[in-house]
């Protein structure tokens, strides 16, 4: 108990430091990109957030497989927590993507391949949570959600492929010309690290909450069973 608390505080400190450094890098250190101007700095948020969303759904996938295999509720707790965090981050991807699209392409929403894929992902994982809440029993809900977690993740590359192929028929605006300059890469990497730590922190927080919820259920159950 004590140890996990220390670990969590450490993680909190680390993510705080990384986020402050990231802010510095984004606003002061990194040079402005020529064609898109200052808006391009959204990139340093947009990409790490998207990466975290993807990572979160990968964890859902792993947790789902392990849950179906081992039938230990801890895997389900991890998977469902990760799905929730993943949805929050996918929402951020959609919002930052839209804000980026407005000055660059003049519209809030464009059926750009990556944005559209994110939208479909968002829908899949919202379905994941809906299935769980609509199940008649908790354990059944966990099992069903695990099925969706597996099928949904396997679907992701096919969705991306189909949407990319669909959009390339109407060539969209190019996001980047040429590679990333070293300072840009550095900024991106720091941002990636910052958001990944933030993800870990949120996941741990969410998992411990679910464990508390489970503990409450267990205590209440005990209460109704009496002593035996």
């Amino acid at each position, binding site marked *: 108990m004590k140890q996990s608390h220390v670990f969590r505080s450490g993680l909190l400190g680390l993510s705080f430091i990384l986020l402050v450094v990231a802010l510095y890098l984004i606003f002061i250190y990194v040079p402005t990109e020529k064609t898109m101007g200052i808006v391009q700095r959204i990139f340093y948020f947009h990409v790490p957030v998207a990466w975290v969303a993807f990572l979160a759904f990968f964890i859902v996938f792993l947790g789902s497989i392990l849950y179906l295999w081992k039938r230990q509720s801890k895997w389900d707790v991890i998977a469902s927590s990760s799905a929730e965090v993943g949805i929050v981050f996918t929402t951020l991807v959609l919002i930052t993507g839209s804000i980026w699209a407005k000055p660059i392409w003049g519209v809030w929403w464009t059926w750009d391949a990556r944005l559209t894929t994110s939208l479909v992902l968002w829908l899949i994982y919202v379905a994941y949570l809906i299935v769980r809440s609509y199940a008649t029993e908790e354990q059944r809900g966990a099992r069903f959600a695990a*099925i969706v977690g597996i099928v*949904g993740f396997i679907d992701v590359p096919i969705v991306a492929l189909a949407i990319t192929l669909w959009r390339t028929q109407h060539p969209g605006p190019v996001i980047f010309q040429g590679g990333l300059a070293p300072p840009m890469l550095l900024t991106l990497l720091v941002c990636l690290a910052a958001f990944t730590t933030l993800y870990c922190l949120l996941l741990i927080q969410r998992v411990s909450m679910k464990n508390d919820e489970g503990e409450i259920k267990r205590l209440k159950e005990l209460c109704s069973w009496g002593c035996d």
Partner: protein
Amino acid sequence: MSFWRNVIAITWKDALSQMRTKELVSSVLVFTLLVIVIFNFAFGASQETMRLVAPGILWVTFAFAGVLSLNHSFILEKEEGCLEGLMVCPISREVIYVGKMLGSLLFMLIIEAIALPIFAFLFNLILSLQLVVITVLTTVGFVAVGTLFSALAVNTRAREMVLPILFLPIVVPIIICAVRASGLALSGEPWGSLSSWLQIIGAFDVIFLVVSFLIFAFVIEE
């Protein structure tokens, strides 16, 4: 080959039972027709716009008709606890999946075989072999995931709602491919230009047949 004997028995039983549910056959067909007509009003009736939106209308129709019939597939098994009856039979869970999947496939293909000519007639389009191939391939993809999710949705509250919520986002890629490929087919493009779309649909079919086959037991077994 008792695997296939049992599969065929389930498929046959399903097809028979679904066809005997007159409300289902008629409601799916009327629904299909209604969607086509309503879209016609929505997009105006000019020959040119119709050409443009026809493939989209076709696949929206088939996707929703698919949801209707897939939903029914497991409601049938739920009514008198029949799914448990199947589960105490000396067959593997995979037999149940394949049997139910083929049953739904058969049913949907029959519906599509009726709807496609009506569609072609109303939109002044010519049916080609290409369109038939696209339809069959996409329908296989629909029932591959649809059967899995239907078995799942039937055990939830608000089961009629859960299936579309699950099913539609997952089949987005093949709907995109089917719409594109049908568009190309209707404007008389050769097979070559369809191939990349057909490949994605084919890959989707294979992947989800295998995955669903492997995890189906987890859906029905407590």
